[in-house]
């Protein structure tokens, strides 16, 4: 059963008071989520009871640590219904994509080849490809989005050519909340013989993701966005490909044999895990996966969708707000209670008067934490015609009462600026060279 009160007790930080005693309303979950106590204690338990390096040393602690670390691979596989695939631990989604861009790029990409991304990508799924472009002189192509904040699949299809070696697209946008039709793209990729990478940083934490059904070649995500610790990323992919591509980082752990002349790389997955990995955090990530399974991804999704609809309804009072969300774009709101999960959990908005930064500062005074800025998606911001937006993003521990506080705080922010900014301008010895300034009018109070 989904018992919100009990769930909230699992997170000590949710008791945190902000400033003069306001309860924390944490709505920045797309950036990183909070960690339940079970995850924090898994972390400390490792350090207090069996801290040792793994895969080396025949002592008891090393054995316990190795078993605990390796067990998390299976948990990850189960979590996303992968079977034969390999799980590689990295530092984060960003590193997973860098690994792929480097290693796949070395093997597959030549001058003039194309990499297909989309306009709604996070910088971490753009820059690694730009870096590859510098090395390989390949082209980076961006599949466009339409006015509903969804991918334009027809255009996307036309952009896939014989030169398209790699397609790398997000499963769920961290700005729009849009969930892309990965199966559809996977079919196109397969037919064309392109490798297909899915950035699942925002999907795996919030909805049931079935790797097998998606049909992609690689799936990447971050532990810290799903109740896990920072410093752990996941890369899931086909063994065959991982076997073929060269290693990314070199060092200990990733080798089988080293001589003065060279080295033999280790088997996968270890071939891609150079050096001492983030043992404690991987183990604690295992506890996060168990915790999320217990709550149930379906329940998590349903609750977030409910919160999103509730919040969108609340935001209607601010009719000057522009909301960048596929559900709103498809209004009326009640319209397709989507099966495809699109638009849930993330509400990004802006308005012409109060800058997102100012909104964030003001509502912070009410204990409300949201994100303001470009959300590491500057090209998308440009497409949306803004330089920054504000974003509220939910997780399963958020409540409708918190959304009430959020809406109340927003109202205060808008009131504040209207009251503050509509006052007539007074002269204070500054030059009047604004072209908008009406000469002689409303300048002196």
């Amino acid at each position, binding site marked *: 059963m989904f018992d919100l009160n009990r769930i909230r007790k699992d997170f000590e930080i949710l008791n*945190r*008071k902000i*400033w*003069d*005693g306001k309860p924390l309303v944490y709505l920045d979950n797309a950036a990183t989520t909070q960690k339940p106590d079970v995850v924090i204690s898994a972390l400390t338990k490792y350090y207090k009871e069996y801290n040792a390096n793994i895969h080396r040393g025949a002592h008891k602690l090393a054995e316990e640590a190795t078993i605990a670390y390796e067990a998390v691979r299976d948990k990850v596989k189960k979590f996303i219904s992968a079977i034969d695939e390999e799980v590689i631990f990295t530092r984060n989604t960003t590193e997973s994509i860098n690994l792929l861009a480097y290693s796949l790029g070395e093997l597959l990409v030549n001058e003039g080849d194309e990499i297909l991304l989309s306009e709604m990508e996070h910088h971490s799924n753009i820059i690694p490809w730009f870096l590859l472009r510098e090395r390989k002189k390949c082209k980076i192509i961006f599949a466009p989005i339409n006015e509903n904040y969804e991918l334009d699949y027809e255009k996307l299809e036309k952009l896939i050519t014989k030169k398209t070696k790699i397609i790398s697209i997000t499963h769920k946008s961290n700005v729009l909340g849009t969930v892309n039709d990965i199966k559809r793209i996977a079919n196109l990729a397969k037919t064309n013989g392109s490798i297909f990478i899915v950035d699942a940083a925002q999907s795996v934490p919030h909805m049931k993701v079935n790797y097998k059904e998606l049909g992609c070649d690689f799936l990447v995500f971050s532990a810290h966005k799903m109740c896990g610790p920072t410093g752990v990323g996941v890369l899931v992919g086909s063994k065959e490909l991982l076997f073929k591509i060269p290693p990314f980082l070199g060092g200990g752990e990733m080798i089988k044999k080293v001589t003065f002349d060279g080295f033999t790389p280790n088997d996968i997955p270890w071939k891609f895990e150079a050096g001492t990995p983030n043992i404690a955090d991987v183990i604690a990530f295992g506890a996060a996966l168990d915790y999320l399974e217990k709550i149930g991804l379906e329940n998590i999704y349903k609750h977030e969708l409910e919160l999103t609809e509730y919040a969108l309804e609340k935001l209607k009072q601010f009719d000057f707000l522009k909301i960048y969300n596929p559900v709103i774009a498809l209004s009326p709101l009640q319209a397709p209670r989507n099966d495809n999960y699109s638009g849930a959990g993330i509400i990004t908005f802006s308005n012409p008067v*109060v*800058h*997102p*930064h*100012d909104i964030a*500062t*003001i509502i912070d*005074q009410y204990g409300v934490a949201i994100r*303001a*800025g*470009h959300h590491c998606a*500057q090209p998308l*911001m440009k497409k949306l015609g*803004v*330089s*920054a937006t504000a974003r509220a993003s939910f997780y399963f521990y958020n409540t409708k009462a918190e959304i009430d506080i959020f809406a109340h705080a927003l109202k205060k922010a808008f009131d*504040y*600026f209207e009251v*503050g*900014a509509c*006052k007539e*301008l*007074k002269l*204070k*010895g*500054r*030059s*009047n*060279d*604004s*072209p*908008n*300034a009406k000469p002689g009018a409303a300048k002196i109070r």
Partner: protein
Amino acid sequence: MIVLMQNQELPKLDELYKEIILEHYREPCGKVPLEHVDYEAEGMNPLCGDEVKLSLQLKDKTIEKIHIEGHGCSISVASGSMLASILKGKSINEAKQLSLFLKDMMHGKVDKNEKDIGDLEALEGVKKFPVRIKCALLPWTTFEEALAGHEHVEIS
């Protein structure tokens, strides 16, 4: 030692958003295009996407006109607007000194009353909102970069 930042005193919004700041935000100075551009720089705050492009027109060693455009929050726009109006007619040296003073003021090294800085003193309230200090300084860093002949600056 762990320093818990809990339950600090709530900084007052009115100290951040002084009336004069909101006025500059609503109707910023420095919007008239220049006849000729002597120095120019673009600045951005990669953290939030705030952008300014600042151009200077000089006459001898004096700043004759300043043009400033971009996107930003109230604090960065107001700070840019104040820059445009206050630096007009100042010598390059005076301008640099003012810029330095403002930075020191934001970092608590000098008091606003140590110098007559006009509207700029309103920016002192930003100190209480540390994440916003960068917003206030962006136009000034960009100004310094423009003088130094750089075209592009990122503060982080």
